[in-house]
């Protein structure tokens, strides 16, 4: 023991004066606010530009200049989109989840880890490094029971992570654009089967959870694995059906085609002026306006598919700890990061199909001509940077909504998840298919947008007004109503 740590010296040193409250002035605060957001958008802009630039560098090795899908461009895309964008975003999300949840819950959030030499929590960012290091260097403990099925036990996290990681390949992050003399796009796979690839690969993930649950040789894990298998298989049906309306509208299952159809076409952008694809001249041709209910259903089903709260019955931290109960260290980390990767992918799909993909509403042609004037006719290339930035912001927004649901809502019970999936979402999405098809036959996408607008109005009315009692009838929440017991008791 340290000789200087006598009781008396400790008592003296424990007289730490309490911190003097520092009032931050409003002006100061406003500066931070503006500066912070400016930095955030500048970072996004830089990120978008870098991504496009790197892909352009790789694409330079390809022969063809006028078409996308070259080999080297694909390599660049894999590097940039899947290894850098998805992985880094997923890693950041582990942090964002903690920090955002802190904000939702009136907390400060993680702020203890420090980088050497910097005496500032840096808003908790060093925790990312700390988390990763912890995951990497933690003991990889395998229980006796799990050791009997070591191969399957180790296969579990791989099968959970791998498919999730591969899903992002078909998601388009930028339009096809001439970027410094070469036509590129931020999309790994330009394939005709598009979204079917997502459905096919996503269903492989269920093997990971089932294997993990079974091979862990733990009853809680087994229950979790069973719940996960049942839930994931059930929701795949709904997941596919909710998108059928979108397929009808776009006439394609390719995500890049779907994205492209939701805003100004390339030709329109070149020409400038107003966006000719706007519905009724003012409504962006986004999927969410044609298929508002399908968007909600899809997001719900997708959250169930990736097992996030309120659908996290397979994990249910306070019930059965989940199928990854017996995993530790890096394998446990793979399961956790797979969840965040899946979140990114789902947000990407929702953005590409329903939120206009990379398109910026209304301003694209006009912005392009402005940018043309700024930089010698390279407006489309500059616009692409803004479009990628828009895509990222939309993805972040969807992710934020998913996290919001996670922290606000209680969890379903296992059978109630099934009830919701089979008895509510499935019929509703079937009805949606019929209505969408009818609307499309009646008047094409404009008619679908009309139906969609009606649906949106009805939905807003439902959320805001329906079922609300008149103010006079509202129950007195604080119980001031007179009642027999309120009188002083005489017995």
């Amino acid at each position, binding site marked *: 023991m340290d000789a200087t740590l006598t009781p008396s010296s400790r008592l003296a040193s424990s007289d730490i004066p309490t911190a003097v409250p520092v009032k931050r002035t409003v002006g100061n605060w406003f500066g931070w606010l503006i500066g912070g957001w400016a930095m955030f958008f500048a970072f996004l802009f830089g990120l978008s530009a870098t991504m496009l630039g790197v892909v352009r560098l790789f694409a330079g090795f390809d022969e063809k200049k006028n078409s996308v899908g070259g080999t080297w461009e694909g390599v660049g895309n894999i590097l940039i989109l899947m290894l850098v964008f998805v992985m880094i975003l997923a890693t950041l999300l582990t942090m964002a989840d903690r920090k955002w*949840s802190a904000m*939702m*819950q*009136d*907390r400060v959030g993680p702020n203890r880890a420090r980088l050497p030499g910097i005496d500032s929590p840096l808003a908790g960012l060093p925790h990312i490094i700390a988390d990763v290091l912890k995951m990497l260097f933690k003991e990889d403990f395998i229980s006796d029971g799990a050791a009997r099925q070591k191969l399957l036990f180790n296969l579990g996290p791989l099968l959970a992570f791998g498919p999730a990681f591969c899903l992002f390949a078909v998601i388009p992050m930028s339009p096809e654009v001439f970027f410094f003399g070469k036509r590129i796009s931020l999309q790994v796979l330009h394939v005709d089967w598009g979204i079917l690839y997502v459905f096919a690969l996503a269903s492989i993930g269920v093997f990971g959870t089932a294997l993990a649950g079974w091979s862990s040789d733990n*009853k*809680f894990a087994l*229950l979790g694995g069973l719940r996960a298998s049942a839930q994931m298989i059930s929701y795949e049906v709904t997941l596919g059906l909710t998108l059928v309306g979108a397929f009808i509208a776009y006439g394609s299952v390719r995500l890049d085609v779907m994205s492209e159809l939701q805003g100004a076409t390339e030709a329109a952008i070149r020409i400038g002026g107003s966006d000719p694809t706007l519905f009724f001249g003012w409504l962006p041709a986004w999927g969410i306006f044609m298929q508002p209910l399908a968007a909600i259903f899809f997001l719900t089903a997708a959250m169930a598919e990736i097992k996030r*709260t*309120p659908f*996290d*019955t397979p994990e*249910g*931290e*306070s*019930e*059965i*700890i989940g199928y990854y109960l017996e995993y530790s260290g890096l394998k446990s980390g793979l399961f956790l990061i797979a969840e965040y990767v899946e979140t990114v992918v789902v947000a990407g799909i929702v953005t590409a199909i329903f939120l206009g993909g990379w398109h910026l509403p209304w301003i694209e042609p006009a912005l392009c001509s402005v940018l043309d004037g700024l930089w010698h006719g390279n407006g489309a290339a500059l616009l692409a940077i803004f479009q990628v930035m828009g895509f990222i912001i939309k993805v972040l927004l969807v992710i934020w909504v998913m996290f919001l649901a996670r*922290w*606000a*809502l*209680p*969890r*379903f*019970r*296992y*059978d*109630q998840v099934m009830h919701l999936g089979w008895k509510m979402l499935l019929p509703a999405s079937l009805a949606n298919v019929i209505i969408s098809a009818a609307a499309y036959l009646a008047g094409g996408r404009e008619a679908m947008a009309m139906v969609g607008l009606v649906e949106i109005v009805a939905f807003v009315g439902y959320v805001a007004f329906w079922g609300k009692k008149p103010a006079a009838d509202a129950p007195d*929440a*604080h*119980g001031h109503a007179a*009642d027999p*017991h*309120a*009188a*002083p*008791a*005489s*017995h």
Partner: protein
Amino acid sequence: MSETQSHSAGVVPVNPDPLELDDELPSAFTKVKLGPSHPATHGTVRLNMTLDGERIVECIPEIGFLHRGFSKSSENATWHQVLPYTDRLNYVSPILNNVGYIMGVEKLIGITDTERSKYLRVAAGEISRICDHLTCVSAIGLELGAMSAFLYGVEAREILWDRVAELTGARMTTSWTRIGGVATDAPIGWIERVKETIPRVLELTDELDKLFSKNRIFVDRTRNVGVIGADEAISWGFTGPALRASGVDYDIRKAHPYLVYDRMEFSVPLGSRGDTFDRYLCRLEEIRQSAKIVLQALEQMPPGPIIIDDWRYALPPKKDVFSSIEGVMAHFKLIMEGIHVPAGEVYSFTEGSNGELGFHLVSNGAGKPYAIQVRAPGFPIVGALPRLLHGHSLGDLIPIFDSINMIGGEVEQ
């Protein structure tokens, strides 16, 4: 729990045939031990469960992990020294335990405390009750996955505990009451502070209400889950919010008014079905009623001494201890020998946060209690867990277990 035990419905009897062990899919029930360190068991309790898939066939609670020998320790301490032990019975609402215990001792002696002390006890006790109910209500949310609501509830609890700390000198282990009164008076400005705090607490309570009470996910998970009827609840020894959720109008504050509860205006919320959702709603409403009581008690509180002027039972004022020989002698006798409580036996009961908090006290006239046995409100309710869980699924275990608000300290003594 025998291996051959089958569910009462007799759906799948366990086949004891050893040959079946070699089958690929033996048709045995799964046995799962939940706890004692399981996230859902926020005391340390172990639930030995027999599961048929997700359905709970049998659940045997196993308690005692937190047993600290309250009764035995109390028999070897003076009457006053038992007070810190009572803090640790229900550590979320210690003042109610302090009051309950001291009321028992006063009943045994045959004295009552001063007027101001009564109001202080009621006000502080109700603050404790709010803390307890907030913990329970928001913990239901937490364990059902809605973590934000839990932190809102805990935030409200924290600011109340700040008030408790200002009043008693400690947040949780208050040891605040004394025979014939209370230890410390409300500090200057405390009453105004509480009046500022209560609206904020109610605001956060309303947020909990909005987050849960109409949310179908929550309602589905709690309604018709863990239903227990009125008669059955009584026979299982339910008291407090768990009993009132079953529709039985039994609140000791109303049925046997003690302290100044007969001067307070409040209503007793009653449930109708006796399910988890009713237990949740009753607690939520009791938070609001308790807030009303706190404000009323603070409003009506008269000035005056906070402890009786009887040197046989209450310590003499320090002025007399420092300057008079009578004071020093009385002080010395009380500290060294303990308070001489007349021989006798009483069962004293007050409304704890989870129900009837009873103390069976026996004195043989010496300075130490001869025997103390506590009727923890949670004890019979935890005993009824197998009944409450009967036929429910594993997912229902969580809301049921939360809604009965097991506090390991009091159940396991």
